[in-house]
């Protein structure tokens, strides 16, 4: 009888055990085996699993004798701001770290209940040689949105697959989504602080692109209301302004990986006297009056001679 009760207790315990909450950071791909010379996509996914996550970091490494990185894409990432943008360094892999202000607990949608996992970044890899391949996450950290930076008890999982010459080359296709949308509208801001850049004015900016991701930014400071297409310089945020008098218009251009552009402008803080709106208006008015007078004079000349 005692044995029966004990077995019953164990059975009930197993049936009704509450699954422990644990966020997941995992590499997923549709492949388990692939041919030599083929390309395939690997996504780094964050599954909050009921937790509220606001920061993540790690390093993705892969067998470099079997694989080469063709492309990485952080478009549509759940990471809002990168502290360390994912960049591949030969022999070191791809290091990344970023934050999600306000936290992430899953992507809501109209066709399903609850939150779905979100993508952090995607990699396109090409196989070079036969063998057992792997893509792994190292030194990963996932932090809770609790105001203390508590580390979440995250499950980390990599990817294993076989590279073989026996796999037909048409088995896996990478979805090629064409990006025709420009990056999202964004608002650069200018600030200064004694703790950075010797208290000089600096510019901060961060644009988002939901398809291919942001590739780079361009900047120019000019007195003209329009940017000059030949004067863009590639910059990163934060950027110390060249015009510390802040009498220039500051144009910032975000370019996505498909080459689409979004240009935004920060107006002058201290316009020179001849660029002040009131002076600008008066000059415009005077220019119009002169034009009208000239037009009248030309018309009279024309009608007189006819």
């Amino acid at each position: 009888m005692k044995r029966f009760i004990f077995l019953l207790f164990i059975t009930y315990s197993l049936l009704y055990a509450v699954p422990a909450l644990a966020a997941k950071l995992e590499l997923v791909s549709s492949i388990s085996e692939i041919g030599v010379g083929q390309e395939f996509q690997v996504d780094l996914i964050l599954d909050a699993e009921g937790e509220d996550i606001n920061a993540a970091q790690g390093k993705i490494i892969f067998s470099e004798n079997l694989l080469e990185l063709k492309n990485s894409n952080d478009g549509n990432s759940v990471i809002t701001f990168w502290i360390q943008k994912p960049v591949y360094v030969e022999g070191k892999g791809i290091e990344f770290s970023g934050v999600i202000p306000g936290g992430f607990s899953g992507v809501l949608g109209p066709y399903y209940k609850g939150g779905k996992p979100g993508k952090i970044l995607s990699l396109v890899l090409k196989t070079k040689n036969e063998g057992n391949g792997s893509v792994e996450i190292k030194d990963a950290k996932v932090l809770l949105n609790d105001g203390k930076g508590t580390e979440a008890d995250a499950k980390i999982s990599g990817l294993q697959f076989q590279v073989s010459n026996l796999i037909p080359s048409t088995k896996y296709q990478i979805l090629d989504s064409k990006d025709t949308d420009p990056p999202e509208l964004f608002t650069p801001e200018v600030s200064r602080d004694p703790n950075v850049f010797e208290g000089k004015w600096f510019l901060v900016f961060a644009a988002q692109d939901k398809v291919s991701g942001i590739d780079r930014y361009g900047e120019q400071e000019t007195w003209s209301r329009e940017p000059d297409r030949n004067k863009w310089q590639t910059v990163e945020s934060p950027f110390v302004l060249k015009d510390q008098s802040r009498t220039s218009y500051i144009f910032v251009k975000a370019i996505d990986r498909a080459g689409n552009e979004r240009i935004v402008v920060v107006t002058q803080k201290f316009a020179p006297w001849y660029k002040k709106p009131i002076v600008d208006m008066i000059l415009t008015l005077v220019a119009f009056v002169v034009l009208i007078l000239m037009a009248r004079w030309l018309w009279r000349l024309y009608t007189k001679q006819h």
Partner: protein
Amino acid sequence: MIFKFRYFLVFFFFSVLLSIYFLLPIGIIFADSGGVTLTVTISQNCGNGVAEGSEQCDGSDLAGATCVSRGFTGGTLSCNANCTFNTSSCTSAAPVTPSGGGGGGGGGGGGGVIIPSGTTVVFSGRAYPKSTVTILKDAQVAASTIAGVDSNFAITLSNLSAGNYIFSVYGEDKDGIRSSLFTFSVSVTAGVTTNVGGIFIAPTISVDKSEVKRGDDIAIFGQSASQSEITVMISSDEAYFAKVNADKDGVYLYNFDTSSLDYGNHNAKSKSALAGSISSFSNAVAFKIGTKNILDQKPVKKILKGDVIGDGRVNLIDFSIVAYWYNRANPPVKVDLNGDGKVDLIDFSIMAYYWTG
């Protein structure tokens, strides 16, 4: 003579060009395409089989609605997993165009109306009467509005791309105190209007004393939705709960007798309930049980953790300053948010928690 007339034409053309240059603002306008409306309802009660609060339906409970009442001629109406109507089995779909009166019967808030638009998200929910409600899109301020006297608000964001967005909403009460950030990620579909309903902004909370003499009362107060029921939670070794009703302006006040609390640090937070909807908890406000009473300073003047430049906000500027010190030696005290002598992921996580946009 013809030669001179040409001059005039050139001059006129130049004038028109000049006018366009001076009068047109710099900007790019994108065309909208027609679309359908999808609904995402944020509800903590969805799935209990009872259509309540902002839910259109729940399981088999369709709140008395049928395909006919939704503007179709027949078919079977069902309920999506997110407690919105599924009209895919309704027949002879005849889109209803909104007319002046609006309304259309209780619970649910007029979903299913097809409005021509581009990729748009409409946010709606409850804040505080006449309060400012701000929406952050991917952590940057995107729009704000003023809630009505009934505490309800609606904000529309247009010209978005298809993809996953992280939106945050916060309210600002009559004293300028911000609520905790309510953040959610939504999948947005191209050419479609997505309604995000059922948002219930957490109450604001303050205390009148930072230190209370044990046995004296501490006043816990703030603002929430008009006539809502407020649950105040005081965290100690054991948690104490109390309920109080907000008045028509959404203001609530609870005087807590501190006799039952031990000496030391404690905190209080609150949440709000109205018509079946429940908000998340507010920020926690700390106080100490001691031997004397010390009045709390005005909460507005408190410096937020992560507000490096001290402008009352935690945003991209502060993030950039902290990022400058990432992995650098000897960071200034105000960028090292956990005081461990270095700037690492933990400092960014703390900043992300206190984010205001």
